[in-house]
């Protein structure tokens, strides 16, 4: 049927976003036989009942003839029912099968909306602890300090070294004493609390 004889339905409740419309136009250009297998449905007045978006896309694609099926003698109520039911998807996608058996890029190009799963590549396993620390309290590590470790054979030597250099110590364990240069006293962390 000549495309100019078909009337777009002004009461069709479906809308299409710009990028989806472009996908539909491309889909028709790439696979025009699809229209023969699934023609546009029109009533006795050549008004579209099913395929309003496809009609627009056919015009955009520059087609002059499109296959149609006539649905005559439907009441106005039945026409409305047809318009809605023609666009309702009753089934659900099995995303496991789609992910494993189908090409994600292709099905996206064909117009299927992939649910928002973030970066789908990240569904594979992640081992980097750094990349995962997002949306979490800030974790900032301290710069590594430089160290000199001095070993003493006898306690007397250690005491002499400490006294000679007038050293103050942050901690004195049985075997290990530690300090900083310049000297910074030990921080009393109990004066603070995250609440």
């Amino acid at each position, binding site marked *: 049927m000549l495309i100019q004889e078909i009337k777009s339905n002004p009461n069709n409740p479906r809308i299409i976003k710009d990028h989806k419309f472009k996908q539909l136009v491309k889909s028709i250009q790439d696979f025009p036989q699809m229209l023969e297998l699934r023609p546009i449905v029109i009533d006795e007045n050549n008004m579209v009942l099913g395929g309003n978006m496809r009609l627009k896309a056919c015009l955009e694609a520059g087609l002059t003839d499109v296959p149609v099926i006539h649905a005559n003698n439907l009441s106005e109520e039945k026409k409305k029912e047809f318009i809605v039911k023609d666009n309702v998807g009753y089934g659900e996608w099995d995303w496991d099968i789609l992910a494993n058996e189908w090409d994600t890029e292709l099905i996206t190009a064909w117009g299927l909306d992939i649910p928002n799963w973030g970066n789908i590549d990240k569904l594979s396993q*992640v081992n980097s602890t750094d990349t995962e620390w997002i949306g979490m*309290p800030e974790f900032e*590590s301290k710069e590594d300090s430089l160290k000199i470790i001095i070993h003493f054979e006898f306690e007397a030597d250690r005491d002499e070294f400490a006294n000679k250099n007038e050293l103050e110590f942050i901690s004195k364990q049985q075997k290990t004493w530690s300090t900083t240069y310049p000297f910074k006293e030990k921080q009393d*962390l109990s004066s603070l*609390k995250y*609440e």
Partner: protein
Amino acid sequence: MNKYPIYIVSKGRWENPLTAKFFKADGVKFKVLVEPQEYDNYCQSLGKDYVMALPFSNLGVGSYPARNFAWEDSIKNGYARHWVFDDNINKIRRVFQGKKIPCNALIAIKVLEDFTDRYVNVGITGFNYSTFVVPGSSDKKPFYLNVHAYSAMLMRNDMPFRWRMKYNEDVDLCLQVLENKLCTLLFNAFTVDKTSTAAKMKGGNQTELYQGNNPLKKVQKARSLEEIWPQYVKVIFRFNRPHHYVDWKKHFTHGLIRNPNFNWQELEKVNDFGLKLKAKKEIKNEGLRKLFKNSN
């Protein structure tokens, strides 16, 4: 409120139930699991609402039956995970710029719960000990993946594994989890302070299991783990005593799998979960005063 139920396994420590005391102060909801003969003592110490009696006593096999009881109780109440804490923890800290600053327990617990639920394959999440977070290594990583978790652990309930060993029960459970390709998380960004049981506390497993620091007992402990997991565990001599050794990084390289139902797109770079740095007394140290000023 914490999302998942918290159980504290305790024995003979009603006079000083450390974990329970500081949880109460920080608004954490929990139950202390105790043997029936100690129930009244714990109720007197903590209040009835915080105590739950176990259906057994003095089994002589350590804490694992009580831990499994917690697991089943949590399932019975419809939860997907549950916490088990040791009873000798007295503080939770947030590690920031190398400083281990005391932190409200409830918020820290919520942070770990939230992070854990972002993945579909986390079996166990735990707090590291504050003393094990050291400059230059663990203080550079907010968490470790697939290592030994201990003492303060969030467990996934639908796992088919259970606590089963008298000694080193946490190592055994982590190995069960990791061998079956689930992950463990050990947090360095939030840590727990544990009071040394051997030196300072009576009760618990101290009297029953670890009495005397007998070297033969230590070999038996390590060997019992090696017998079950010969592919992962070796008995070595370390720190002047026999010790079990597991090369976690070598054996368990599988990664985290992100939960597709979690809204990753909406994550901000940083979420402080409402944490605010507060002064509890006069801040004498200049470095801490600077940190406090910059945080507020």
